[in-house]
């Protein structure tokens, strides 16, 4: 039979890596394809939009994929796809073809400092995170920092995680509400500093998992409560079922949309997460009901959590947690001078209260300082 997948003529050496182009952006088709690949012992390695993916398949996998998907995928080439390819999808195919070119092979063989340990010149490391739960994120090598400061373009993964019962599933109106609140909050944030030239580029996924609401976490940690549904969601998207899979996804969307930065937000509805909202690089987690604040404050809470992603600390205290006035945060290492424990009066600010306002300290934590007045923000000077 003819192939159900599109494989451009240019392919990298003898690898079993395959480029797969789906005939439509239907999310269920994408999920079905990922499931078949997994059943065949393969693994999706990269995703470029809803229709283009790279998968490592065993030798017999290609034939198995053809058989399994017969009747679902019409023979379709990247050139003849029924809809114009989105930018990210085209980039994925272009990158695939580039990797097959002699120029690419030659350049890889002659790249500078090949074989030198990362320890001699380490890649970017995460900034200090304040009281966020990053220490619970189990992964090995230090990941790159995908949110150093808030200047430039940012890929935002929005993953809506639906469970097996109606109480755990987003209705159409709730899904629209989430996207509208995020659009509202991040639009407001982008408008606060025109010199930062912020553009948010979304990768929105609606994922169904079979994890029940009453699963028993191993302990009371963030990770224990998050991992069951999060890992299932990452597997559905074709990434490893682990926190490493979250990093891989964030790096993939950063590459796909060619943005400066990237992070991902998981929205759940009714799963027993550690707090109704929390964040540490590269992900934030929010429950639809948003604690007592309610869905109508998703925009403000989401923007607050995005502040954490980019290095901003809390400016409020509770009986169990005090913010620290003299601790430095963010790329520019500014103190938390609007913390409610500081001797000076606190002013309204997103990181302190349910307000659409920014204090100068938070602005600097985002990286928005122009010390010499040349119109170029300090992180870019």
């Amino acid at each position, binding site marked *: 039979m003819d192939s159900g997948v599109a494989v451009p003529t240019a392919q990298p050496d003898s690898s079993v890596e395959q480029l797969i182009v789906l005939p439509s952006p239907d999310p269920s088709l994408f999920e079905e394809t990922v499931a078949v690949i997994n059943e065949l012992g393969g693994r999706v390695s990269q995703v470029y939009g809803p229709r283009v993916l790279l998968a490592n398949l065993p030798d017999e996998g290609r034939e198995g994929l053809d058989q399994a998907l017969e009747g679902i995928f019409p023979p379709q080439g990247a050139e003849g796809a029924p809809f114009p390819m989105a930018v990210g999808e085209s980039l994925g195919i272009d990158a695939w073809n580039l990797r097959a070119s002699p120029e690419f092979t030659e350049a890889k063989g002659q790249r500078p400092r090949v074989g030198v340990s990362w320890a001699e010149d380490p890649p970017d490391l995460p900034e200090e995170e304040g009281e966020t739960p990053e220490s619970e994120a189990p992964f090995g090598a230090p990941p790159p920092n995908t949110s150093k400061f808030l200047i430039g373009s940012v890929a935002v993964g929005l993953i809506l995680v639906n469970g097996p019962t109606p109480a755990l599933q987003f209705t159409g109106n709730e*899904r629209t509400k989430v996207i509208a609140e995020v659009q509202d909050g991040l639009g407001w944030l982008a408008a606060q500093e025109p010199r930062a030239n912020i*553009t948010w580029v979304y990768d929105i996924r*609606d994922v169904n998992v079979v994890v029940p609401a009453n699963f028993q976490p191993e302990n009371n940690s*963030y990770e224990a409560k998050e991992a069951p549904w999060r890992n299932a969601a990452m597997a559905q998207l074709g990434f490893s079922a682990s926190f490493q899979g979250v990093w891989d996804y964030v790096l993939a969307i950063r590459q796909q949309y060619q943005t400066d930065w990237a992070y991902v937000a998981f929205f759940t509805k009714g799963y027993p997460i550690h707090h109704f909202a929390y964040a540490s690089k590269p992900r934030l987690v929010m429950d639809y009901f948003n604690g007592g604040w309610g869905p*109508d404050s998703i925009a403000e809470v989401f923007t607050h959590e995005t502040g954490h992603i980019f290095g901003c600390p809390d400016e409020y205290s509770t009986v169990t947690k005090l913010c620290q006035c003299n601790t430095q945060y963010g790329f520019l290492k500014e103190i938390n001078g609007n913390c409610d424990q500081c001797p000076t009066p606190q002013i309204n600010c997103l990181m302190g209260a349910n307000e659409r306002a920014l204090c100068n300290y938070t602005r600097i934590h985002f990286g928005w300082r122009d010390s010499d007045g040349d119109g170029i923000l300090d992180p870019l000077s």
Partner: protein
Amino acid sequence: MEEMLLLLREDGDASHVLNTLHGRGGRVLQRYGRNVIVIEGDERVKSTLADTSDIIGVYTSEVPEGQMPTNDFSGSLGISAWNLRQSENYARTKANRPGQGLSWGDPAFEREG
């Protein structure tokens, strides 16, 4: 400067549209797929973009139902979200949301993590 939603044609030249936008002092705030873009600009930006053949429309209010893309998951959600934000109900609930102005540590509310 005003927030607007820009809807590109499937075969529209996105580079041309964005260059036009930037040339008139506008900027891109948010993108949902290839064709749905939330921008910031003034009346001059709006009128210039409205004259290009690469776009379906540039909107400062609700996008008509018939203009929703049918094969673009992110784009459709971006427009639905935009339309919800234009509604009176959204504005009303936003203006009266619980805990507005209170500290995130207010004891009457659960604290974020």
